[in-house]
């Protein structure tokens, strides 16, 4: 690894860590973070494939309310470094990602707790009318989240590819890495289950079964499913509207069905 690559790697890790708290641009998702690490380390294809594999694993990892999901940022960045620099299999990458996600979760909870200190500092600045101080408190919390990924990534980048680490990774027996790869085919069900539970709409489950059956017995691609989903949503809203109008005996105003824009269909 050249020193330029090392610096870029730290930048990617920093950005992924900050994105993990912001949850805006999604630089912390495996699909993006692993690809960027691959790009920096000169093996973008491995980065993309590992990113796709880990994205399936992490599909349902989301921070809703105050609940903290396993941490995709640390898992993506560090396992991508180890796989690419140490020439490991995707299976080994999956094996590493799970404990790393748990470790990252602990780190982000730690940072989100000590950021309470910045919250109280911000109160003090507010009483003085010091907006710049409040902005710095905000930035402080953000930077800590970047550092909590960048420091572990830097440490791993220094030792990755050395004989000791490679020997350690190579000592993972084949039955484990092959077995992990096999599980990689269905591990995504945890993500699907988390997403379905989050929507918490038991009465809408027939749509889930419709999608399942259509996928099993036809060759419709995902764009097609999106279109079918929009049509189903349209009819569902129409039905719901009728139901609510009957309940309110025509007291409703406006025509919300107009919101379903036909141009979205394709």
């Amino acid at each position, binding site marked *: 690894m050249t020193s330029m690559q090392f610096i870029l790697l730290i930048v990617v890790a920093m950005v992924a860590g900050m994105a993990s*708290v912001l*949850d*805006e*641009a*999604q630089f912390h998702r495996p*699909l993006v973070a692993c690809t960027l690490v691959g790009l920096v380390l000169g093996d973008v294809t491995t980065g*993309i494939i590992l990113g*796709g594999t880990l*994205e*399936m694993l992490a*599909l349902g*990892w989301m921070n809703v309310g105050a609940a903290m999901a*396993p941490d995709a940022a640390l898992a993506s960045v560090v396992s991508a470094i180890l796989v690419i620099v140490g020439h490991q299999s995707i299976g080994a990458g999956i094996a590493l990602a*799970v404990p790393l996600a748990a470790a990252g979760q602990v780190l982000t909870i730690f940072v*989100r707790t000590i950021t309470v200190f*910045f*919250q109280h500092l*911000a109160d003090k600045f507010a*009483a003085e009318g010091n*907006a710049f101080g*409040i*902005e710095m408190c905000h930035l402080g*919390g*953000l930077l800590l989240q970047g550092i909590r990924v960048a420091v572990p990534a830097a440490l791993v980048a220094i030792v990755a590819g050395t004989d000791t680490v490679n020997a350690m990774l190579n000592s993972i027996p084949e*039955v*484990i890495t092959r*077995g992990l790869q*096999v*599980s*990689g*085919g*269905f*591990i*995504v*069900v945890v993500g*699907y*289950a988390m*997403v*379905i539970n*989050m*929507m918490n*709409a038991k009465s809408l489950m027939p*749509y*889930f079964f*419709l*999608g*399942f*059956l*259509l*996928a099993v017995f036809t060759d419709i691609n*995902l764009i097609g*499913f999106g279109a079918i*989903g929009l049509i189903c*949503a*349209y009819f569902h*809203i129409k039905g*719901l509207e009728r139901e609510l109008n009957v309940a309110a005996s025509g007291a409703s105003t406006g025509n*919300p069905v107009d*919101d*379903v824009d036909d141009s979205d269909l394709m």
Partner: protein
Amino acid sequence: MSTKQLTKSDLVSIFIRSNFLLGSFNFERMQAIGFCVSLIPALKKLYKDDPEEYKRSLKRHLEFFNTQPFLATPIMGIIAAMEEKKANGADISEGTLSGVKVGLIGPLAGVGDPIFWGTLRPVLAALGAGIALTGSIIGPLIFFVAFNVIRLLTNWYGVMYGYDKGTELVDEMGGNKMRYLTEGSSVLGLLVMGALVAKWTSVNMPLVLSEYDNSAGEHVVTTLQSILDSLMPSIVPLLMTFACMYLLKKGMNPLLIIVGLFAIGIVGYAVGLFA
């Protein structure tokens, strides 16, 4: 008293800052600092002649705040509009302002979470990941670009629309429209999830159940997988999904479930059940 008016560029500043709402998320007041920082451009302008009110305004927007981050933007717009009225002498108390905020964070999270975290991100991520497994850069690009275009448009129109409509929007959000939006996106999300369970999982159970030569002299091998395929393909991932939903509802840690599924995969591979 001259009228104080927020300009487009103030609103653009709020939009830019809104992209960093969660930066200092903490377990005490969550997105509080982020919300205050997003509004600072407006507060600075509105209360530049009134240092005492300026301090109070900074303080009141450091109160607890937590909602779906993209849908925090209409709240920022509404609050900016209300602060503008207040700065021009309208009788808007601090209680009213925090009432609007507290009243909106729950409903907006209720709409935003299923739309963005429940539908948009998993669908785009699954689409991108499926392509990425072939090693193509299109996979990550499609996810990143599509998600961010929709997110930035939401944040932009959130601030602008919230400011234009002001408190009018508060009534609108209480109406049926939000319910239509939530349920409609849940329908779309669930249908696609159902398709993904079948399409983007792979379970192969090559366990041989019987082997014989038929009357035509062909060698026929019946595996567990071929029987399952003739009954209902993808039934195994479907049942696994339901098992996971059940365990998650029981409060089991998702990482523990993932480790459990890995264990099943490794043991299954070792004994020849999975391949």
